[in-house]
């Protein structure tokens, strides 16, 4: 089914080690930011950008009396949809969902060698994730890669301990700790869990149910964001405040985005044939009629009053000199 990450926002402390690890692994330059005291609190950078694939958003949840009830931190990045809008949008297949047995199965990856820079993916994405290098002469689309390169191969390639190469079980154990996105690897609290998508959904459900048994404790919202949204995503979220208070759109529906265009595009081949048949038939009828009129002369009697009137009001209508006519 593919790899996924489960973000448990009740565990996240907002330390932003994931942001730092992401920049380090993906070699992204720093961004000049400024203190933002209004609205979204202390979060920085203010938005995903060509230099930031991920960021933590800060949410101050107030109680009924208007006092701070709790702070919730949400890691945002590409959701790596199961059926991505961006992949269906791209006219040159520069965006692809990795499928099959590959280590990075589940990731939505981008290939600049194919990209046109048309930016349709940016508008198609229901989560507004893809960004653009506006300051570059030949810009790329930028977005979280799910560290597909890490998932494909553990780094370093030939690990050694005390000058001895790792092998067998120890090598496998080492690789398991490395083959995950840099952010998940860096997270000190375990708020980002990496694994197979179906396992993580089961784990998320288990956590929700577990909490329900602890009476008097806070409870998870009984919803795994990303399980069904837009057909499912590879990043899944748990929260203990309603998701719409955390900047998640709840109105996106469960329909996979590619289906929105599928009907229109599937109609193209039959439409071409159908139009061809219809236009051919119309051309046939109208031209035979015109030819018959020309053969009979414009004074054809019965049943053609309308056309006769038209012909009369149109002295330019050629009855002679037909042979000279070109387009």
């Amino acid at each position, binding site marked *: 089914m593919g790899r996924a990450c489960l973000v448990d926002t009740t565990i996240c402390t907002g330390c932003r080690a994931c942001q730092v690890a992401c920049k380090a692994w993906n070699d992204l330059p720093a961004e000049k930011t400024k203190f933002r005291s209004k609205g979204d609190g202390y979060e920085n950078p203010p*938005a*995903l*950008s060509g230099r930031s694939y991920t960021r933590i958003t800060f949410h101050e949840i107030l109680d009924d009396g208007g006092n701070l009830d709790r702070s919730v931190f949400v890691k945002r990045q590409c959701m790596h949809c199961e059926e991505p*809008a961006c992949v*269906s*949008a*791209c*006219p*040159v297949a*520069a965006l692809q969902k990795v499928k099959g047995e590959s280590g990075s199965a589940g990731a939505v990856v981008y290939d600049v060698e*194919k*990209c*046109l*820079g*048309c*930016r*349709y993916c940016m*508008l*198609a994405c*229901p989560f*507004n994730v893809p960004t*653009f*290098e*506006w*300051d*570059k*002469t*030949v810009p790329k689309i930028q977005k979280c890669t799910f560290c597909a390169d890490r998932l494909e191969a553990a780094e370093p390639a030939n690990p050694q301990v005390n000058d001895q190469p790792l092998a067998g079980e120890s090598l496998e154990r080492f690789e398991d700790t490395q083959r995950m996105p840099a952010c998940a690897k860096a997270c000190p609290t375990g708020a980002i869990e990496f694994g197979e998508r179906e396992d993580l959904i089961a784990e998320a459900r288990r956590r929700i149910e577990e909490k329900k048994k602890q009476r008097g404790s806070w409870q998870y919202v009984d919803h795994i964001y990303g399980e069904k949204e837009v057909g499912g995503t590879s990043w899944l979220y748990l929260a203990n405040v309603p998701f719409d208070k955390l900047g998640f759109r709840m109105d*996106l529906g469960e329909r996979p*985005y590619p289906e*929105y*265009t*599928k009907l*229109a*595009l599937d109609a*193209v*081949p039959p439409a*071409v*044939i159908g*139009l*061809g*048949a219809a*236009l*051919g038939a*119309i*051309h*046939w009828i109208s*031209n*035979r*009629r015109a*030819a018959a009129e020309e053969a009979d002369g414009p004074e054809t009697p019965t049943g053609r009053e309308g056309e006769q009137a038209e012909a009369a009001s*149109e*002295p*330019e*209508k050629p009855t002679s000199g037909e*042979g*000279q*006519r*070109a*387009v």
Partner: protein
Amino acid sequence: MIHEQVKGKPVTPATAALILLVAAGAIAVAYRYAMGLGAVTNLSDQYPWGLWVAVDVFSGVALAAGSFTVAGLVYVFGGERYHVFVRPAVLTGLLGYLFVAVGLAVDLGQPLHIWHPIIMWPEHSAMFEVAWCVMLYLSVLALEFVPAVLERLGWSGLQELWKKLTPLVSAALLALFVGVMSLSWTWAIGTLVFFTVLAGMLSRFVPARPGVPALLIIAGVIFSTMHQSSLGSVFLLMPDKLDPLWWTPSLPINFFLSAVAVGFAIVIFEATLSAKAFKRPLEKEALAGMGRFLAYALWIYLAFRLGDMAVRGHLAGLFGGGKAPLFLLEIILGVLVPAAMLTSARVLGSTAGLFLAATLVVLGVVFNRINAVWLAMTMPGEGAYVPSALEVLVTASLIAAMVYLFALAVKLLPVFPRSEGEGPQPSPAAATASSRTHTIASR
């Protein structure tokens, strides 16, 4: 129909002004390539598409619709009396698509990859369909315009070859299109067979019209239909951003219907301006006929669009919602008013009335495309997009380039029908105008 060149110098004060504007735009484009999109435009991650996409690309395609509506009307539906508009409309369409291609090359982040849709075949992408429609329709338009060039050069041998080959080329282009859109050999070969048979049947059973391979025209109408509607399909992926007054699963049909309307409008608009600029007679009867077609097209578009909204339960949005004023402005001034105007015989008989109605339709459709691309979109975050001065300059210079090329083309090539020595004129007014042309031409 015999065509003639417009007499006049290739450069006049008016065209010199156009050239100046084009030169300024060219400098801005050079600056854009040197410094990147961010330095020249006000585009951002929040508003990735702006003026260039809305006007240069989406409106450019819509305004090029005149070539397929007129070619279809004359050659497919047998509207012979509108023949006078064919060549100017095809020229406008050809230049319009050129405008789109240049505009696209300026807007793309990786312009050197502009040809990639030829080798990458993601048939699930509406933008991929758009790209193929641009390429194929541009080919058809070029083929449609070849006779004017060959006629000018006097190469009759090539003209014969062109007549023989174009039906087969058209069938092949259609098969290629269906092939890449379905990724199925069955569909591709089936399409090739179907259109080859159709071409054969038309040439055998339908009385020959000299110089008009029916299949080329049919292919042009099909590619245009597909292209206009696919531009609507592009927005199908934005149900979460585009206001429901515009977003509907029927967007492709809305875009097609509005393109048909603006196709008639642009012909009226262009013919009226050409008559003034080149001091040519105005084909008043035929223009009134186009006005009548435009009225039908507008009423159908309006009924479909409002009917679709009623079915989806969005009519109430007309009276609330932040985007309702944009919608009302677009629909009332761009559709309802010109439709009502053109339903009156008095307006149809008046050159100024026709021109005003056609201009409203043109502006209305451009406004519709601008709404879809940016004004009716709700983007995340604060801030709005207002095009930069350089964006406006580039768009203005592209339009100027097209106007200049049109004026140049009609002087170099036989585009307009011959206005003298061709039997009686449709009306005394036109005859006077014609003789005036004659005096000016002989001066």
